[in-house]
C-alpha cells in the first residue's frame, strides 16, 4: 500500500475582508504577510507535516507552485535547507501549473511504489496575484500544504491516478506578467473546467472500474466554486454532504496548493474505508482515488487546516494589502542594510536557514549563532549542533521601533530565551503591539527578510504561538 503518512498545512495569519475590494463582496481571502512568499509558506507547511517524524528519513522533496520567487533557481533547495533535510535527496520544483501539486503526488507515489524512494515530501504553495479589480484578485488566496508519502504506516492510500494533458489558453501568465491572465470566463467554464474534468473523471473510472457510488466525497479543486458544484451535480454527488467545501469564503482558492489543502480538509474528518475522488485542474486534469485506511486512527495530532482557518487577523483596509503586494509604488527611506553577499550567505546557511546554534561539549552552554570559541568556558574543544527552528521560547525583552523603516511599522525586535537553553535576538512578526508581554510564549517562523540585488534574503522571525 502506498499513500499518505502525514500531512501539514499553513495559512497566513492575515485575511483581507473582501469588502475592502468591493462593498458587495462576501467572505475573506487569506493573504500572505509582506515577509511571506510561496517558499516561506512551504517551509511552514512542511515543518507542520514532519512534526513527530525523523526529518533525516525524507528521501525527496517536491516543491509545487506557480509563484516561485525565482524564475531560475531551485525553490526545493531553499525549502529542504530550511526544513533541515539531508543533502542526498531527490529535489525538484513542479511549477507552472495549478495541478502541479497532484502531479507531484503521482511522482511521489510512483517513487515509493517502485521502491526507489522510501519517503517523499510533496509540498504545494502559492501566492497568486490578480490584477486590482479583477476576479482573480477576489478569488485567490495564499496558502500551502505538505504531504509525506510512503509505503509504511499509511493513513490514506492513493489507489488510483489518471491524468489528462490538455492544451488551451485558459489561465496563464507570460514571462514578465505579474498578474494572472485569463480568457473568456464562459469558455473556461465549459471547455476548460467542465469538459476536461469530465474527461479525466471518466478516464479514472473506466481504467480502475470505479463508479460514482464508490466515493463518499468529491474534492473538486477547480478555481471557481460554482464550477465545483456544477461538476459535482453532473456526477450525482449531493453538494451538501458529498462535496468538500470550497473554503472560498474563508481562504480563497490557493493555486497549486488548493487541491492538497482541500484534501487535508477532507481527511481531517475522514473515517476508515472512506474513499474520496480528488480532482485538480490546470492545462488538463489529475484525478485520483484516495482510500482511508485503519491508520487514520493515528492521524497526526495538532495538524489541522481548520485551526489555521480559525486563527486569523482580518484586515479591512485595501491599502495594507496593496502595500504588502507592492501594487502601489512607495519610497524606501535611505537606510541601506548593506550588500547581499552570496558567499557570506552560503557560509552562514546553517545559522540563517537551518537555524542551527551549538552546544558546547565542554560546559554544555547552548549558544546562537554557532561559535568557534565557547562564550562561557572559552574552550575551542567542540560543539554539537542544536536546531532552533522547532523549539519554543519565551520573550525575555523587546522593543517597538517607530522610526527605522520596515515594510510594516512599527517593527518589533525580540530577545527570546529558548526551552533547553539558548537565546536568539530576532524580529517579531504577525503581532499586535498591545499583545506583547514579557514571558509570552513564541515560536519561530521562516520569513523573507529583504530583497536586495535580486536575492531574496530569508531567515527566521519569532511569532506568537498560533495554536
Amino acid at each position, binding site marked *: 500500500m502506498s499513500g499518505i503518512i502525514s500531512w501539514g498545512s499553513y495559512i497566513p495569519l492575515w485575511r483581507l475582508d473582501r469588502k475592502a475590494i468591493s462593498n458587495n463582496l462576501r467572505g475573506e481571502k487569506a493573504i500572505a504577510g509582506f515577509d511571506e512568499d510561496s517558499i516561506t509558506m512551504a517551509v511552514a507547511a512542511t515543518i507542520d507535516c514532519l512534526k513527530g517524524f525523523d526529518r533525516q528519513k525524507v528521501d525527496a522533496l517536491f516543491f509545487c507552485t506557480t509563484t516561485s520567487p525565482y524564475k531560475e533557481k531551485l525553490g526545493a533547495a531553499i525549502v529542504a535547507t530550511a526544513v533541515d533535510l539531508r543533502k542526498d535527496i531527490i529535489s525538484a520544483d513542479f511549477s507552472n501549473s495549478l495541478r502541479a501539486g497532484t502531479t507531484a503526488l503521482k511522482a511521489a507515489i510512483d517513487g515509493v511504489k517502485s521502491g526507489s524512494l522510501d519517503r517523499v515530501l510533496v509540498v504545494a504553495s502559492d501566492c497568486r496575484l490578480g490584477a486590482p479589480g479583477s476576479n482573480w484578485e477576489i478569488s485567490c488566496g495564499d496558502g500551502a500544504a505538505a504531504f509525506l508519502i510512503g509505503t509504511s504506516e499509511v493513513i490514506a492510500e492513493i489507489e488510483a491516478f489518471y491524468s489528462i494533458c490538455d492544451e488551451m489558453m485558459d489561465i496563464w501568465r507570460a514571462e514578465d506578467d505579474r498578474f494572472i491572465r485569463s480568457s473568456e470566463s464562459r469558455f473556461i467554464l465549459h471547455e476548460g473546467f467542465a469538459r476536461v474534468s469530465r474527461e479525466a473523471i471518466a478516464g479514472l473510472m473506466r481504467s480502475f472500474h470505479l463508479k460514482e457510488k464508490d466515493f463518499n466525497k468529491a474534492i473538486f479543486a477547480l478555481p471557481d466554486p460554482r464550477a465545483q458544484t456544477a461538476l459535482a451535480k453532473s456526477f450525482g454527488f449531493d453538494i451538501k454532504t458529498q462535496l468538500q467545501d470550497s473554503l472560498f469564503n474563508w481562504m480563497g482558492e490557493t493555486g497549486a496548493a488548493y487541491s492538497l489543502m482541500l484534501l487535508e480538509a477532507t481527511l481531517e474528518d475522514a473515517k476508515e474505508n472512506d474513499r474520496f475522488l480528488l480532482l485538480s485542474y490546470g492545462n488538463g486534469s489529475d484525478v485520483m482515488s484516495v482510500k482511508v485506511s485503519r491508520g487514520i486512527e493515528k492521524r497526526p495530532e495538532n495538524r489541522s487546516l481548520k485551526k489555521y482557518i480559525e486563527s486569523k487577523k482580518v484586515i479591512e483596509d485595501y491599502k495594507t494589502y496593496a502595500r504588502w503586494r507592492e501594487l502601489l509604488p512607495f519610497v524606501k527611506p535611505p537606510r541601506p542594510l548593506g550588500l547581499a553577499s552570496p558567499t557570506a550567505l552560503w557560509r552562514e546557511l546553517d545559522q540563517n536557514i537551518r537555524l542551527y546554534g551549538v552546544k558546547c561539549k565542554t560546559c554544555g552552554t547552548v549558544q546562537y*549563532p554557532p561559535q568557534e570559541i565557547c562564550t562561557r568556558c572559552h574552550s575551542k574543544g567542540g560543539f554539537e549542533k542544536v536546531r532552533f527552528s522547532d523549539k519554543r521560547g519565551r520573550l525575555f525583552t523587546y*522593543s517597538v*521601533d517607530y522610526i527605522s523603516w520596515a515594510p510594516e511599522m512599527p517593527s518589533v525586535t525580540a530577545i527570546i530565551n529558548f526551552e533547553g537553553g539558548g537565546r536568539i535576538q530576532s524580529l517579531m512578526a504577525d503581532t499586535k503591539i498591545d499583545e506583547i508581554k514579557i514571558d509570552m510564549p513564541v515560536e519561530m517562523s521562516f520569513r523573507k527578510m529583504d530583497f536586495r540585488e535580486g536575492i531574496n534574503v530569508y*531567515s527566521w522571525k519569532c511569532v506568537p504561538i498560533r495554536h
Partner: protein
Amino acid sequence: MESIKDKVAIIGMGCTKFGELWEKGPYDLIVDSCYEAFEDAGVEPKDIQAAWFASLVSGFTGSRLSNALKLEYKPITRVENFCSGGIHALANACYAVASGVCDIALACGVEKLKDRASGFAMVNPEPVDSSKVIPETPPANMFAHIAIRYFHDHGWEIEEGRRILAQISVKSHNNGILCPKAHLQQKISVEDVLKALMIVYPLGLYDCCGLSDGSAAAIVVRADMAKDFRDDYVLVKGFGFCSGAGQAILQDDYDFLHIQENIEAAKMAYLQAGIKNPRDEIDVAQVHDCFSIHELILYEELGFSPKGKAREDVEAGTFALDGELPVNTDGGLKCFGHPLSASGLRMIYEIYKQLQEKAGPRQVKNAKVGLTHNAGGMIGSLNAAVGIFGRRD
C-alpha cells in the same frame, strides 16, 4: 602593568559648535577644533609630532587629518571604536608621549552625521553575521530592550519608569541652555518628555540624543613638560577601556539590567587613578547619555549611586548642576549632540574647562577631579571607555 596616572598632561583643547552645520565639511570642522587647541596650547601645527584621528563616517585614514591641517609627513593613525573613538584617540596620543616616542601629540575626532540622511546609516560590519541577514538593531532598540526589562524588574509601570527617565533629560536640558556650543538650547518639562513622539518604545524623542556634526581636539605632552606650556594644565589620572564579547546575546542568563562593559571600564579607571569612593572623589562627570536609560544605569555602574538607589538620587537632584555630583554639565549628548567620534573629546573638553574654572555659568565649585564615560557598539559588544582627569597639585 603600570598606571597612566600623572604621566600625561593636556595642554590645549578645542571644540566646535555641535549641530546641523550644513556649511561645514569635515576639513572645516577639523581646522576649527584643532586651531582652537593649538591656540589654547600656545603651539603651532608644525609642533605636532604625531596624531590620532577618530571618525566613523568622515574619514577612513589618517590622511583626512593631514590634508585638513597640512601636517606634512607626520605619523597619523585613524582610530575607530564607534562612540568611544574620541577618547581612544586621546589615549593613544597619551601612551605615545608617556613612552617618550614623541613629545607633543594631537588627538582629534570629527563627524559629519548630517551628510547622511539617516545619520550613521546602519552598516555595522560586526559583530553580527557577515551575511547581514538580520536587520541591524539601531541603538535606540538596544537601549529600549534594557528599559523594558529594567522597568519590569523594578516593578515600575511604563509611565512611572518614563517619568524617572524624563527627569534626567530635563536636568540635562537645563544645563544645555548654559552652553553656547551645544546643539540644543531648549528648556523642557517632564510633561514635554512624556508627550513627545515615540521613537522606540518606551523611549521618546526627549529620551534620545540627537545626531549632529562636530569636532573636538586635544594636545598632550608628558607631564613633566607641561609647565613649559601653561600653569593650569590638566593631568590624565586614569583610563579604563574594555570591549564586550557578545555575552548579552550569546548567554541566555544576561539580564538586560546592566552593562558589564561600563562596570569593568570604570573599575580599571578607578584602579589607575586610585579612586576608592567615586561618589565622594569625583567632582564632575560627563557620561554617555545616548539614551536617558543609559544615564540612569550608569549612575550605579560608575559607583555614583549605591546599588538600587539610582532612582532616589534622580529624584533628589543629586546629579543636577547644583547637586552633590553634577553629571553632564554641558547638556550631555542629549543637548550638545552626538557626532560619534567627536563626543569623547567634547566630554573631556568640558571636564578640562571645569578643572580650569573656565566653565562660566556651568562652573562646578571646587572641581578638582572629573570623569568622562563613553560606550560604543551593540549591547553585549560595547566598547566602554572611562577617563579620569585632575588638576595639577
